[in-house]
């Protein structure tokens, strides 16, 4: 054996967490590259939804004006695909724990949060994929950004940031559920009402009163409104503030819950 010394800087805390999470994020990315079919939910699936709703329902919803409907729909579908894109993260983490891979990480002198933070960091790639695919394919279908390059970039950045906050719910469920299949079941029970019961598909004023109440308090609603404002038209400042508050709230609640559940899980 060589005399290679194991360097172990004493510096812990946030810096070490960042370094370790980064190494673990790289691990997740390698896994993603090895199994490209795991990206279907952030590539092909959003496209299918976009085609389905534009050409199947668009005519009925917007009096036959599909082009106009696509302008309305795409920002909303972007938000929905982001929310759905986080589901796989909880499933993967659940499977990793079942396989015992996390036992190795637990036996190392790293922060307990590092494996979870690393996995979330790697999800940036998936959310970026949603944005690129949606805007790219949307453009082919006839969608046109009405604002400009900078607001569009802002919409992408906000989308990814929201995805990173929202996915902590999935991480938490991933720690609690017994199987990865159960993670998917539970998450869709949450994501479907949130995304359909919002302003994604139809203007809110066409809805009955009690549904409007739900839409008003739904975190997806201000996100969609902000993205619409940044890509097409409409106010930005108001819904953006509400969205940022929601994002902070999601982090404040679900990060501690996820970490606690992770520590408890033997």
């Amino acid at each position: 054996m060589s005399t290679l010394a194991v360097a172990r800087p004493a510096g812990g805390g946030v810096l070490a967490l960042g370094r370790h999470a980064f190494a673990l994020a790289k691990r997740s990315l390698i896994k993603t590259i090895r199994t490209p079919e795991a990206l279907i939910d952030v590539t092909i699936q959003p496209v299918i939804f976009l085609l389905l709703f534009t050409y199947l329902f668009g005519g009925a919803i917007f009096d036959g004006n599909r082009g106009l409907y696509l302008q309305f729909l795409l920002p909303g579908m972007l938000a929905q695909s982001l929310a759905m894109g986080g589901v796989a993260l909880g499933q993967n983490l659940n499977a990793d724990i079942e396989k015992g891979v996390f036992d190795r990480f637990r036996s190392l002198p790293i922060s307990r949060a590092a494996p979870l933070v690393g996995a979330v960091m790697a999800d940036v790639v998936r959310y970026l994929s949603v944005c690129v695919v949606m805007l790219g394919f949307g453009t082919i279908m006839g969608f046109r950004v009405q604002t400009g390059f900078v607001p569009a970039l802002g919409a992408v950045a906000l989308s990814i940031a929201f995805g990173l906050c929202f996915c902590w719910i999935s991480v938490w469920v991933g720690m609690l559920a017994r199987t990865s299949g159960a993670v998917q079941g539970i998450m869709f029970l949450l994501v479907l009402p949130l995304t359909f019961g919002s302003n994604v598909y139809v203007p809110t004023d066409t809805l009955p009163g009690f549904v409007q109440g739900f839409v008003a308090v739904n975190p997806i609603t201000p996100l969609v409104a902000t993205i619409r404002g940044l890509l097409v038209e409409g106010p930005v400042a108001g819904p953006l503030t509400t969205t940022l508050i929601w994002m902070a709230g999601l982090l404040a609640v679900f990060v501690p819950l996820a970490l606690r559940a992770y520590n408890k899980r033997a």
Partner: protein
Amino acid sequence: MTEDLVVHAEGLRKRFGKTQALDGVDLSMRRGTVLGVLGPNGAGKTTAVRVLATLLRPDEGRAFVAGVDVLKNPQQVRRLVGLTGQYASVDEDLTGVQNLVLIGRLLDLSGRDARRRADELLNWFDLSEAAQRPAKTYSGGMRRRLDLAASLVGRPEVIFLDEPTTGLDPAKREDMWGVVRTQVASGASVLLTTQYLEEADALADEIVVVDHGRVIAHDTPDGLKRRVGGQTLRVRPSDAARLPDVLRVLDLVAAAGTSASIDEAAGSRPGAASVPVTSDEVLDKLIPALRAERIEVTELALHLPSLDEVFHALTGRTKAEELV
């Protein structure tokens, strides 16, 4: 607590629902030695290892690794130990080298040092050729070796191996034993769990026998073998009709006061005879005697007592009886 105890545990208790996995376990291991923890499935071996490796908090009791309190300073303990679990916890989608580099990076090695350490270990574990392949393409034995390599990246002082050879064929088992011996020769202390007395005998300086979450014996391999009755010599003639002659020969060569018998234990293949022996010197007398009688054999072997026989000797009951 004395200085040279590298692992020391007192009164460990852990309950999972209705199962008392650990029911007051005391363990101690001297620095630079191998401690074998011997027991059947469900005896609490894995739970004990998980407690010592900081993966699990016990309900009661204290434990120290290299003098560091496992419960109070788990992070410090994690710098000192390497763990190889019962199920190879390698990442199947990563290649061999990626698995080891990741561990190195998590142990704060620089990228270059992590890579160098990975190459060194892969070479040492005979995995260099498979280094660039995803671990899911590895055989069971290769996976075990990679998993063990992963636990050695940080040059741990104390290595925990939970059933390192279960499911491996005999040749691979010997390889694994060689790895353990090398680690001890280079200064590490190894605590390994096993279901085989043979394995504990081959590797361990001391053996702890656990059953139902309790330690029922702690002895040297020789001391334990004396208590459970040493080895058995078994001879199987090619012609079953010669079995009475085999019995006669065995009685002749074996020590006075022991007598050979035809194997009738449940599960054993019929047509063989056995006699308890105290040393392998008996073989020197046996082989010429068999030749003189012109008895051809298909099996001639010295066996250590099985785990079942160990338990029978220590507790007066067999595991099979317990199930009834």
